[in-house]
């Protein structure tokens, strides 16, 4: 039986929803365990005092990348059936900037705001409410936004394709970048602080 199971018809919609719920709860539990439900911890990222967000997210990227590559290679997963979001350059740059402003102002991103809300933090509840309003507003205004949403399409892009290197080389380079990044992050966190 080859993965992805839903894509290849082994799971129905109900099975996929149950799987999504279980994976979602596990993801939230991991985020909370890593301390990512705290806006103070996340804000530390911007002051270079606590780089937990960088370390957790980059290690998640590396784990998923190695998993996808090797499971694809040994034939357990049909990697061509894994959804890769299409690139729309300008709308995604604007969206990324908006996301960054919201992250810096609120101290939480969408996933961590759900974790913060689930543990009863009021800032998390406020951000989830704001996110919900934003989703609703975007949905209602979508006909007016559709033209902008579809601007500068670049299709599905992956690192090996953009960098013109074999997939395995891209994997190695990302692992290397992550390990160098983790070591640098540890050093930055360990340096003496002014006024500390």
């Amino acid at each position, binding site marked *: 039986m080859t993965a992805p199971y839903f894509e290849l018809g082994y799971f129905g919609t109900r099975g996929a929803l149950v799987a999504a719920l279980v994976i979602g709860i596990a993801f939230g539990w991991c985020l909370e365990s890593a301390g990512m439900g705290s806006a103070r911890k996340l804000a530390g990222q911007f002051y270079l005092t606590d780089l937990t967000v960088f370390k957790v997210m980059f290690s998640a990227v590396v784990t998923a990348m190695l998993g996808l590559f*090797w499971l694809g290679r040994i034939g357990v997963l049909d990697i061509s059936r894994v959804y890769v979001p*299409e690139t729309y350059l300008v709308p995604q740059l604007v969206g990324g900037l908006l996301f960054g402003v919201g992250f810096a102002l609120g101290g939480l991103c969408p996933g961590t705001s759900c974790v913060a809300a689930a543990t009863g933090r009021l800032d998390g509840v406020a951000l989830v409410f704001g996110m919900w309003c934003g989703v609703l507003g975007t949905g209602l205004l979508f006909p007016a936004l559709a033209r902008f949403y579809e601007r500068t399409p670049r299709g599905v892009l992956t690192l090996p394709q953009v960098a013109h290197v074999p997939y395995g080389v891209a994997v190695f380079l990302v692992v290397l970048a*992550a390990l160098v990044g983790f070591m640098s992050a540890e050093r930055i966190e360990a340096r003496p602080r002014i006024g500390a």
Partner: protein
Amino acid sequence: MSGNRERWIARGLAAVALTLGLLAPLAGSPYRANHAAIDVPALARTVAREEDHVTALELAQWIKDRRAGLRVLDVRSPEEYERYHLPTAEHLALDSLTIVPFHADDTLVLYSEGGAHAAQAWVLLRALGYRNVYFLRGGLYEWLEQVMNPTLADTTAAGRDAFARAATLSRYFGGVPRSDIRTPPADESIALPGATRATSVVPLPTRTTSTRLDAIRRRGC
């Protein structure tokens, strides 16, 4: 003690990641689809039975009916897609075919400007194992001629019926059906709906439709 243990776990995980990363360049491609196989006789039968393509009017009806699982795929350049594309169409770069996932039950309709690139993409998608794949026979030009700007060419009762059906579809997509039978003037052009004035028309040579489409097909785009 606990800090020491965590440090060793982190180092161990880093060593595992580095080993798997180092081996990755030697392991080859993870895409099974890179080695797709073609059942040549089956594909030839599909082509012979003309089950490999759809006409612009058939596609227009599918889009209007919101056919379940229909995905209309534009294989032209991103700039051409941005300038004008069919309603509901998604852009698909030919070199992304192996990394774009489609559901096995999706109905995939490919189109390019004339039809050649779409037909080539059709072969590739069939080789990847997708069953419900079609290409738009005459490409974007057929869509513009038959859906956006249908003209009454056959004045028999059957011809008028066919024109009436095409005209209904055309109006649904914002097209301009023409029932006046006339020779197109030298500056005849086809309107691109929703485009800016500077790019709102596609000039077409003053030839018959079939000659014109043949010329486009020969151009191979």
